[in-house]
């Protein structure tokens, strides 16, 4: 992890104010992460608080519909309802090791903000969550949860009032308090060492998949499908398989309403390499390099950049990228609800929609793991409104 570069992606494009802090963070991570004490604390929290290992569920009804053998990696069962807590607990423990008393972060769907507030309370750390004003409205219930946990929610009303703006403002805030406060980055984005730290904490997902699928199928999966924007749940699932060249990796981003400008979040389809929030990423931008706002009904995918590592994987063709449009995503929610009794997060429903839309890509005997990153409770209003109006 010495340089944090993944091909042309990654790096540490931050103010001088923050550079020393990033160096300190990298050192702290390298020092503490591998120690038995840290591993023990982390694993205990992951097991007893977060509810790991999460199951690998053979979704028979959904499999029948697709025409292959689909397992769902049940990150929706992680405490708080998504994979986000895996990373939040890890970084909260790291914050304590670094002797810092506060954590700040940003959130879009609210899942990461909630996870941070939870991890903060468990570890006895103060938490402040930056959130775009538009997301605050769209994800009202998670805002309530975060506040009930006693964390401060700071509205961000610059730009479009969405995740991109919240990240910018959290970075700004961090430059004012980085010596006492940890920025708990929520996805595999931002300057090095964040993408590395987040992917490491999330790779517990893939490690479990490996064990579980071998036990169930006596072989590795043929394919892993995951949704994402920054890429943390996808990398968490992919990482232990990147070197296993026979395992297909499919990454599904938010198509939004259409692929026309300003109506999508599909940075792999309509973006290009650029520097945002501390790193070179695949990012939505205009011809002059001005970052474009992304758009998708899934707040957690509504970010114009793809993290450095997933950008690198797609660039090198180790991973394939796909996307799903909003209307397909809502239908995918219903498909999963009806076949398996599960209501997925809109983000997760992108991976489901991809499989529903591309049945031909999956062989009859293929074993597919779909990383079921979160549950849809947070999106319930949006989902019901869609079906009542359409």
């Amino acid at each position, binding site marked *: 992890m010495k340089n944090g570069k993944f091909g042309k992606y990654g790096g540490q494009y*931050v103010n001088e104010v923050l*550079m*020393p802090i990033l160096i300190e963070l990298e050192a702290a991570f390298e020092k503490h992460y591998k120690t038995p004490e840290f591993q023990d604390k982390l694993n205990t929290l992951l097991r007893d608080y977060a509810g790991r290992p999460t199951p690998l569920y053979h979704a028979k009804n959904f499999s029948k519909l697709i025409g292959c053998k689909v397992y769902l990696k049940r990150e929706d069962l992680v405490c708080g309802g998504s994979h986000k807590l895996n990373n939040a607990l890890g970084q909260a423990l790291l914050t304590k090791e670094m002797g810092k008393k506060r954590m700040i972060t940003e959130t879009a769907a609210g899942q990461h903000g909630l996870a941070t507030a939870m991890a903060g309370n468990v570890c006895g750390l103060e938490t402040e969550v930056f959130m775009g004003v538009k997301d605050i409205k769209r994800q009202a219930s998670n805002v309530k949860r975060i506040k009930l946990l006693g964390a401060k929610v700071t509205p961000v009303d*610059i730009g479009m009032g969405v995740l991109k703006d919240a990240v910018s403002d959290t970075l700004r805030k961090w*430059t004012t308090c980085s010596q006492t406060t940890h920025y708990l980055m929520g996805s595999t984005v931002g300057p090095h060492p964040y993408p590395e730290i987040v992917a490491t904490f999330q790779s517990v997902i893939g490690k479990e998949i490996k064990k579980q699928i071998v036990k169930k199928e006596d072989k590795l999966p043929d394919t892993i499908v995951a949704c994402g924007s920054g890429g943390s749940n996808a990398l968490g699932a992919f990482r232990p398989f990147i070197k296993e060249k026979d395992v297909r990796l499919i990454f599904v981003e938010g198509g939004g309403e259409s692929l026309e400008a300003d109506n999508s979040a599909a940075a792999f389809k309509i973006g290009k390499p650029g520097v945002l929030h501390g790193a070179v990423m695949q990012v939505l931008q205009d011809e002059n390099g001005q970052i474009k706002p992304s758009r998708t009904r899934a707040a957690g995918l509504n970010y114009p950049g793809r993290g450095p590592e997933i950008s690198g994987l797609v660039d090198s063709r180790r991973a394939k990228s796909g996307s799903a449009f909003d209307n397909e995503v809502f239908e995918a929610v219903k498909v999963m609800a009806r076949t398996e009794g599960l209501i997925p997060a809109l983000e997760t429903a992108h991976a489901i929609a991809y499989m529903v839309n591309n049945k031909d890509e999956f062989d009859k005997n293929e074993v597919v793991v779909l990383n079921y990153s979160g549950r849809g409770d947070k999106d319930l209003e949006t989902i019901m409104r869609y079906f009542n109006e359409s």
Partner: protein
Amino acid sequence: MNLENKFRELQNKGEGAHMPHVYYGDPHEEFSLKLLETLVENGADIIEFGIPFSDPTADGPTFQAVCERALENGMTPSRCIEGIKKLRTKGIDNPIVVTTYYNIPYVMGVRKFLDKIKQAGAQAIIVPNVPVEEADVLLAEGKKSGIHPIFQIAPTTTEERLKKITDIASGFLYVIGVEGVTGVRESLGDSTLKLVQRVRKHTDMPLMAGFGISTKKQAAAVVLAGANGAIAGSAYARIYEKNLKNPETTLPEITKLVEQIKQGCIEGYKQRK
């Protein structure tokens, strides 16, 4: 005039340098040109010429709004570079330091971008989100283009990094006195003055202090502490943003401020013993 000569000239005169920071194109190009002329005519020694970026993470609320307006009004990097040319055509001879975020040159091609601003008449570039760790391209291409990459130093900068930065820097060093982003602050903490003194121990290179400076007193203080000059930016935007329909009407107030800050730069210098 190049940066070196400007700093020498001011030293000879016994003055601190004032570098106002203006994002070009807010609320429109004509005003930016008039504003820069006004600033130069009334005390500015060096121009920090900002090319607006959509996500200016090192900037506070004032400059965020400035960038947003400029972009909404159609400002582009190419038109900014044209703007530099226009200043030169108008006969403005002061050193021009371009400020922007790395994605702008990255997307155009760093070398191409540097060549263009050089051709237009700029002497240096500040890219706040390029620390020394990521500066190889900027340094190499800057050398070829004849553009100084200006580096920043912050209160969090360790001694080790300070050495690294001073080793590769040219033009001047940008001393960020506060932990934070651009924007007007009521009072300048001791931290700024201490940092200037700390940096001064390491290098004879010109030091420009910025972030949070908006008064004569603050300018005088940083120059007295050893800086070669003071940077002010948001302070000017805060004046003209009060009348965005007719920003020209605010020029007299801006004139007064730039005179004062320059005066501070002069007095701070004189107060050194």
